[in-house]
């Protein structure tokens, strides 16, 4: 009959109105900034540089200034200058480090390609989004000090990814140590000389999988 649809609709809206006071399913607004939504783990915004130690971030950056991310970045928002000297990295090997590492986050489009191509797990995606400023030039150009975060922070924001990266790096370190330990003592017998060939450690993985 004419009008029954309207009455049913009015009943639905009345139920919504009444339910919005006591039923959380009928009141889905997060009252920002008093309440914050829980971000999903693989939410990403702009990159940050991973440092092993939060007490000396500049000295323990994983980045070796290979400039792959600079070349792969589609809007070319990364600017890197290599250092003149070398420093030992976490595995003890002497590596270059970035003297200047700037990212212009007004240009960055959060595509995560820099993270995907980095061979050293040195650059990862951050989750910070409350970065509004009133000056669109200097505050949106992040330099090395502003980009550096500790590995502990990385474990907090991306637990799954950080666990996978840490496991892989620890395995690589262990393999490197075993290789160094196998090289150190002189070979006792002749047949031992074939051992280094079979115990050659796997090369570090080229692409980083960031599935979480």
């Amino acid at each position, binding site marked *: *009959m*004419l*009008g029954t649809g*309207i009455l049913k*609709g*009015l009943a*639905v*809206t*009345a139920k*919504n*109105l009444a339910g*919005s*006071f006591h039923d959380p399913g*009928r*009141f*889905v*607004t997060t*009252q920002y900034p008093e309440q914050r939504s829980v971000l999903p783990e693989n939410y990403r915004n702009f990159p940050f540089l991973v440092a092993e130690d939060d007490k000396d971030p500049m000295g323990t950056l994983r980045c070796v200034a290979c400039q792959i991310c600079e070349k792969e970045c589609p809007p070319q928002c990364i600017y890197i200058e290599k250092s003149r000297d070398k420093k030992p990295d976490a595995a003890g090997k002497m590596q270059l480090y970035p003297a200047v590492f700037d990212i212009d986050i007004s240009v960055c489009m959060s595509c995560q390609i820099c993270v995907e191509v980095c061979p050293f797990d040195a650059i990862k995606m951050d989750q910070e989004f409350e970065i509004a400023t009133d000056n669109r030039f200097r505050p949106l150009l992040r330099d090395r000090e502003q980009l550096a975060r500790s590995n502990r922070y990385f474990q907090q924001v991306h637990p799954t990814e950080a666990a996978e990266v840490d496991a892989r790096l620890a395995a690589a370190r262990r393999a490197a140590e075993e290789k160094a330990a196998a090289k150190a003592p002189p070979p006792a017998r002749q047949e031992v000389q074939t051992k280094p060939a079979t115990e050659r450690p796997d090369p570090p993985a080229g692409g980083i999988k960031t599935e979480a």
Partner: protein
Amino acid sequence: MTAEAIELDSWLERLPLTLRDLLAGPIPGPWRWIVQDVIAIAVVLAVFPLLFAFLTLAERKVLGRIQNRPGPNRVGWGGILQPFADGIKMLTKEDIVPRAADPVLHFLAPVALVSFSLLSLAVIPYGRHLVPLDLDAGILYFFAASASSELAVFMAGWAGRNKYSLLAAMRALAQLISYELPLLLSLVPVVMLAGTLSPSGIVAAQAGWSAGFLPHWNILTPWGLAGFAIFMVAALAEANRSPFDLPEAESELIAGHLTEYSGFKYALFFMAEYFAMCALSGMAVTLFLGGWQAPVAILQFVPSYGWFAIKLLSLLLGFIWIRATLPRLRIDQLMRLAWKFLLPLALINLVTASFWHLSAGWGAAAQPLRWGLGLALVAVPFVVIGRRLSTGLGPRTYRYAAP
């Protein structure tokens, strides 16, 4: 109203009169009526814009809650100061008048609209002693004022020199004129049965209670129920209110006849629409809901203006509820509803009301028959015409999509 009768009311009931006499007391005799009228005008001009402000807030919050969100709640405690923030915003916006526009008409249109809407508020009885203007032909005055406001709609559409706003103004005019007829026809039975065109007379005709708890309001009769429904639908259309807000919807010809308006003039149009809504709801309360009468005899301690306010606010909340529920009607659906559905039903309602009036003398045994016949006279045309107009408009069947 005799002095003794006024004395019998409670002090709460007489409070507005007491305040008015306090203010007008110092004025000498012959000029006192001017001051009293000015006070009445000032009260209306103070109350209704405030009501408009908080009605916009209530609308946004109720609409929000129905849509599972809180509505504005940042300005002031729970958002209560939001209308004042909106007012400041409207006042400080730039007032753009297109260079090719007709400046006189462009300026006069919102002024005329607001003036006519305010004029129509003058005859509504807000309380037992609270009619600003007690006219013998008050109902006619009310509808003369609201019909004249249609001119302002045309002026607004024409003044912008914009063919789209002109087209939209003509559509708005067509809507307004089409719904005048059911509006006026649905209140003819009220006037017929009350025997007077004066709003206070119509309220007085709905006085009294049967058995102490059944009021004699017009809505509690078959013809009154149908008349109220028709009046409310037509009032929704007259006030350009959803689901009849085609003239001012953003997806329809930008903003219709309001396209060329910005800043305070836009706020005036908005305000005039809400005044029209309040005035029509006030008239509906007067005609069908018994005006300022209490629903039960024992609740008479609440003053008459309190009851009027309660009924008015319920009707306004009903408007907001309908806005939140129904989608917008297209212009041809709108016109069809007015001419092919509401108009015949209003005409048949006249017959029902005449039957009700002529059968008023029937005894207690014939009351069920009287009610049955009355309800049948209301329900049968509704179902028959509704069914005939809905043929071919049933639920859609899709050939390829899964049901």
